[in-house]
């Protein structure tokens, strides 16, 4: 999509088309001859995996929409009708429901990979921000999709999440009413959620196009974080990465199939097989697993508005990350201290996810009551959430900005090809590189 094109039209019709709409050239430059660093590891295969996930969700979703009835009286039964009476409806519906979870597994790995290898740093800031937009759209899509079966968790989840906007001062109530299309979560809400749930994936697909475009301008980052210096550092995307990504995609599909065929309801909540009843609130309202870390942040703050701000802030901070990290070294491979803080960050995210699925008052160490600090026992999920939330924001707002100025990175290789040479003794002088000592 950028740089010199190596495409040469070979047939008459290709030449004819190339001077009118160079679409074959676009495809050739994007996925055939696109020069790709030769040292990409398997963490880099999740981009391709995500494209497959989006494709699966759109195809299955379009088929589901042919049979689904977006009405409060019929939605629940129509989903079961799909599972029972539509040919292979069980396959399509379970694929779509489990596909959402798979999509999030892949996107989280993709994001952590970007964080670890500094893929958000110059010149890839726009690429990173587009990714954040995709993630935000994904969250909105997944949330609205979960409402559609109109089970108990669908309904009460929708009530909880839409009520968050009610925390906004002055305009909160008006916004909530506007979102609902009435004075409660009801048929109007279900209808608009269905409409938006159908629309957003195509917007995601559009932003994915931009994301790939923004990727192909600077080219891929790589595990060393060192820029591509020469042609020796790269291989053509096809066949080298089509085959590697293809292998990883099939491995991922095996994981997908394990859930889909042998435990299709493991990632869902049993309460969502109870038809929605506004008069009966489930004992514990929990979102799907992929929202649990944010749910934990929301509940960590005793004030509703504060919780909402922090929860959205947890995503907003990702958008400005390229300017928060002051280190010039991209890859954490060469930032030993940064690597340690990153690992703790991953643990903090997992801890938040765990806390989000627990009751705030549950003990972290069972059976041990310590003392009440402010509003809750110190040995409780709510305090563990607070600790992890503090680290989550501390990592972005304090550690990354300061660390880049103070840490001493280890030596980076001069080029991508250097570290893979099997005989370090044979390296040309200076190949060990002038390490960037500070920042």
């Amino acid at each position, binding site marked *: 999509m950028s740089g010199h094109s190596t495409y040469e039209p070979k047939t008459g019709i290709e030449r004819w088309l190339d001077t009118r709409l160079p679409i074959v050239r676009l495809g050739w430059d994007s996925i055939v001859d696109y020069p790709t660093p*030769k*040292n990409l590891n398997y963490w880099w295969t999740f981009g391709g995996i995500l494209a497959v996930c989006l494709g699966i969700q759109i195809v299955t979703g379009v088929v589901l929409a042919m049979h689904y009835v977006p009405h409060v009286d019929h939605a629940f*039964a129509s989903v*079961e*009708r799909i*599972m*029972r009476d539509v040919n292979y409806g*069980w*396959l399509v519906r*379970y694929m779509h429901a489990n596909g959402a979870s798979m999509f999030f597994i892949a996107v989280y790995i993709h994001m952590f990979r970007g964080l670890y290898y500094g893929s958000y740093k110059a010149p890839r800031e726009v690429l990173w921000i587009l990714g954040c937009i995709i993630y935000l759209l994904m969250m909105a899509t997944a949330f609205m999709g979960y409402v559609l079966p109109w089970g108990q968790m669908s309904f009460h989840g929708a009530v909880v999440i839409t009520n968050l906007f009610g925390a906004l001062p002055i305009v909160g109530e008006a916004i909530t009413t506007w979102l609902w299309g009435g004075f409660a979560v009801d048929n109007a809400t279900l209808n608009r959620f269905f409409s938006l749930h159908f629309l957003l994936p195509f917007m995601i697909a559009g932003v994915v196009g931009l994301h790939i475009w923004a990727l192909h301008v600077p080219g891929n980052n790589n595990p060393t974080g060192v820029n591509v210096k020469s042609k020796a550092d790269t*291989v053509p995307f096809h*066949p*080298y990465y089509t*085959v*590697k990504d*293809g*292998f990883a995609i*099939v*491995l991922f*599909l*095996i994981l997908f*199939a*394990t859930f*889909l*065929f*042998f435990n*299709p*309801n493991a990632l869902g909540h*049993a*309460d969502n*097989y*109870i038809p929605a009843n506004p008069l009966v609130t489930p*004992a514990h309202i929990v979102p799907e697993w992929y929202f649990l870390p944010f749910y934990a942040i929301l509940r960590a703050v005793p004030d509703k508005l504060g919780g909402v701000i922090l929860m959205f802030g947890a995503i907003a901070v990702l958008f400005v990350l390229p300017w928060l990290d002051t280190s010039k070294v991209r890859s954490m491979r060469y930032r030993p201290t940064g690597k340690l803080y990153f690992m703790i960050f991953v643990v903090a995210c997992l801890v938040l996810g765990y806390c989000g699925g627990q009751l705030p008052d*549950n*003990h972290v*160490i*069972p*059976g041990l009551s310590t003392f009440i600090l402010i509003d809750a026992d110190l040995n409780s999920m709510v305090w563990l959430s607070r600790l992890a939330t503090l680290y989550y924001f501390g990592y972005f707002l304090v550690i990354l900005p300061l660390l880049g100025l103070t840490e001493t990175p280890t030596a980076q290789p001069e080029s991508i*090809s250097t570290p*893979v*040479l*099997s005989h370090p003794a044979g390296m040309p002088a200076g190949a060990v590189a002038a390490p960037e000592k500070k920042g």
Partner: protein
Amino acid sequence: MLRKGIALAALGLALVGGPALAAGDAKTPEPVDFSFKGPFGKFDQAQLQRGYKVYREVCAACHGMELLSFRNLGQKGGPFYDPDYSNPNDNPYVKTIAAEYQVNDIDSETGDIIQRPGTSADAFPSPYPNEAAARAGNGGALPPDLSVMAKARKYGPDYIHALLAGYREPPAGLTVAPGQYYNPYMAGDTTPFWTGEGHAPEGGFIAMPPQLAPDKVTFDDGTPSTIDQQAKDVAAFLYWAAEPKMEERKAFGFGAMIYLVIFAGLLYASYRRIWRNVAH
């Protein structure tokens, strides 16, 4: 290393299993060795037939199953599937079962509301004309529809079995309100009703009285009709009702897995071959 791993695993289990006695927790259902568990598990057709009989003679008096039609009983994997009748609507068992029910209809000649015997294509009629009638007949409680009950509760069929066979005399010190019954597997919190020593008993109260009794249902295949057997069979039947395509799903999955594993092997071999001359 291994010992360390076991110690860590034990610690993990202790952390997970520890708070089992916290207030408001129901007893965890004991796992039942159902034939349909596991990646290759299939329904036991004789068990489904017994389970249907329990449903028909006990549960159906109060609980509907509105997402199911009679024809479902004769579908592949169903309790009355017969390979001779690939169209379940023609299955004589299904036709007979359907005809035992009276379903509402409209006389096409006069427009009058009538009742006629059910056909294979009809849905299971609900036992009550509406929710108010159902509540009026059950002391204010609403017997839930059982179509997807086995998916709508944690532990699914294990829970249904445990609940139905798990009624106990309330421990001394537990006040049970009229029209309520104590069950250790029922979700809820007994603390406000507990005046005895120590921790309030696990479980909660349910408006459904114990339904099963020895020999309450006669099993045509000679299986001893104990409470435990009846509970197991009806739990299996309800799991089938909730997941009628389970056998098809697992068979499809088995084929898909073989395909994917072979495909992955071929791709890995291609990957090794294509990359063999690239140092990376």
